[in-house]
């Protein structure tokens, strides 16, 4: 594949760029319901359709549950689809999310991360996405506006891959990225077509069409159920390598690489690692650079994929390190650690018994600041030297 043409550079918000990303992939059926902080995205997609820029059926549904049902059914009928939501909206889709993945509908959904119901927090946090971890979807987390756009394009290549056929959720921090305008290179649509062209060369997937004796969503019992679930889990395992492969293809063509399942930053010679995700990783990178100046051998792992959990690549990246600090923007109710930290701890059998420190920060729009990250690195450094450490720290509660 030759390289793509240079795209147009625009200063654009995360929501708007997500709409551009979806539009460039030419979805045929779009359904969306407005919710803060995603609304601009629903509006922008409607405007694209109204302006004739996007030739799609736009369904202005009466709720998020219907958004997901519309796109999953259209997807099973054969359409390329798109929807977007956040927080309460994602919660309201809970049953349909599970149908989408169980039906193996290659839906792409954008989710602007926001705290979940119970305490009315109109603010950022990853609780929505984390609470939907067991619905059988692929969940990817991005860091900035350019990555939102690029990842949406990559998400279609992944979801519709014949050997995958799973729904993909592209997550970005609501408020921080949804309303943040950054310079973004918008690729030419012909180049996006070319990048997605391999999907047309693969065998056609099974579709639900009338006049044919075929069904979707049968009452699976006993072995029928087990076989469907087994195949679903196998497909999720295949996602891991596929994400790395698509990332490489994307980088080769568009010139931007993200590392696939995880991005490793200055980890090769590092003694200690900070694991973070989403928009906060930009700040972590800055602090890692500053600490390196001071001689601290610290590296960053940016977790780009939460489901399936990139256990193999994380193990590879962490093996031999002396201590890890994990920053979580959400909670794992009933476990004292943050959710990403808790899952990382399951790797102990492979990476050895090293200190893994859990940090809860950035809930409900509280900033993950430079001093916070400095503190994390200092404490993880001390733990690496065998000093006593606190297992879990709620940073805002200790300030």
């Amino acid at each position, binding site marked *: 594949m030759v390289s793509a043409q240079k795209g147009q550079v625009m200063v654009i918000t995360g929501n708007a760029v997500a709409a551009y990303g979806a539009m460039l992939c030419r979805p*045929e059926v779009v359904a969306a319901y407005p919710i803060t902080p995603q609304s601009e995205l629903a509006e922008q997609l409607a405007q694209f359709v109204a302006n004739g820029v996007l030739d799609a059926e736009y369904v202005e*549904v009466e709720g998020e549950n219907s958004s997901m049902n519309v796109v999953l059914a259209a997807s099973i009928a054969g359409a390329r689809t798109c929807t977007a939501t956040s927080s309460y909206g994602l919660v309201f889709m809970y049953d349909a999310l599970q149908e989408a993945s169980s039906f193996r509908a290659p839906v792409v959904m954008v989710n602007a991360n926001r705290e979940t119901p119970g305490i009315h927090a109109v603010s950022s946090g990853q609780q929505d996405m984390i609470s939907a971890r067991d619905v059988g979807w692929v969940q990817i987390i991005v860091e900035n506006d350019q990555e939102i756009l690029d990842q949406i394009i990559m998400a279609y290549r992944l979801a519709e891959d014949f050997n995958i056929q799973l729904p993909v959720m592209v997550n970005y921090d609501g408020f921080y990225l949804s309303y943040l305008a950054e310079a973004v290179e918008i690729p030419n649509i012909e180049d996006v077509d070319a990048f997605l062209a391999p999907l047309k060369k693969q065998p056609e997937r099974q579709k639900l069409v009338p006049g044919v004796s075929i069904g979707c969503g049968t009452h699976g019992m006993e072995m029928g159920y087990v076989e469907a679930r087994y195949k679903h889990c196998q497909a999720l395992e295949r996602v891991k390598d596929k994400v790395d492969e698509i990332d490489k293809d994307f980088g080769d063509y568009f010139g931007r690489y993200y590392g696939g399942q995880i991005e490793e930053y200055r980890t090769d010679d590092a003694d200690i690692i900070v694991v973070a995700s989403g928009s906060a990783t930009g700040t972590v990178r800055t602090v890692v650079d500053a600490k390196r100046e001071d001689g601290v051998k610290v590296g960053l792992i940016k977790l780009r994929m939460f489901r399936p959990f990139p256990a193999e690549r994380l193990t590879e990246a962490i093996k031999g390190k002396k201590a890890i600090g994990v920053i979580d923007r959400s909670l794992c109710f009933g476990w004292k650690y943050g959710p990403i930290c808790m899952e990382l701890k399951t790797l102990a059998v492979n990476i050895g018994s090293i200190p893994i420190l859990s940090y809860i920060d950035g809930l409900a729009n509280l900033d993950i600041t430079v001093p916070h990250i400095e503190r994390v690195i200092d404490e993880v450094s001390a733990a690496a030297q065998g000093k006593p450490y606190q297992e879990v720290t709620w940073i805002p509660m200790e300030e």
Partner: protein
Amino acid sequence: MVEGTKKRNKIFDYFCEEDQFAGGVAWCAGCPLELTARFVPKVLGKNMVFVGTPGCGAPVLHGQNVGAWHKLAYMASVMTGVPSKATGLSRYYNRIGLDATVVCFTGDGCATDVGFQPLSGAAERGEKFIYITYDNEGYMNTGNQRSSATPLGAATTTTPVGKIGRGKPTVSKNMPLIMLMHRPAYMATATLSHLEDFAKKLQKAKEKVKEGFVYLHVFSPCPVGWRISSNLSIEVCRNAVRTNYFPLWEAEEGKPRFTVEIANPKPVTELTKLMRKFSHLKEDGLEELQKAVDERYALIKSLCDANK
């Protein structure tokens, strides 16, 4: 031997397709739901996709582990997603020019209760599919619990009769009228005692769905839950019409009209005596029920008269 001499029933003229279902299926004896499910594709043709839910329809429509017990394409859904899935399917089929009739086929519990929001949404958007409610006045598949389509006074397992309990204390949600208020392209009530009336309505539905949303409300007694003798279910349908308990009407462009008018309606007791779900009602309870029937009929009649 009588072939050729016996007059052929006119209903066969409405059939364009052979029966799409297996000979023996896992529905209860005497259940009008089975007859409705078989009847619909015979009239509409087999270029259709059934969208259904867990409920009485499920074992046959969606299969149990193996194939379904019919030859039609289908999508199974949870009860909250039926009209929205039908939206996704019909939007895409229409977009690519595929000849397809998308038919939702759910019970009253799904339509009037837990799945009402997306039904109302799809109707308001004018989505081009047919929604058929088989109304057996409660959650029959889970064991006869009340739904909002359960009538006044009816005994169910969640409105039981006891020292204090007197059956359901409120009238049923007037679903056909609620759907009329959405101004669908076409809507109608139907039941199996009036097959020609039902067939005509299905034919209209197939035509009108090209313009917009179509809603059909089919009265479908449950022999098990209502405690009816299984050979009487069609008789119950007939008496529901003759007592004005379930009037047969339709509406095109939002204008309702009766398709069957009953010259001398019988008292509702002609219906209630056929089943045991009202058997605990004393004279006053039956009077209350008669009042509810009269009131509901008067309302739809006034709307029909206004459109004459």
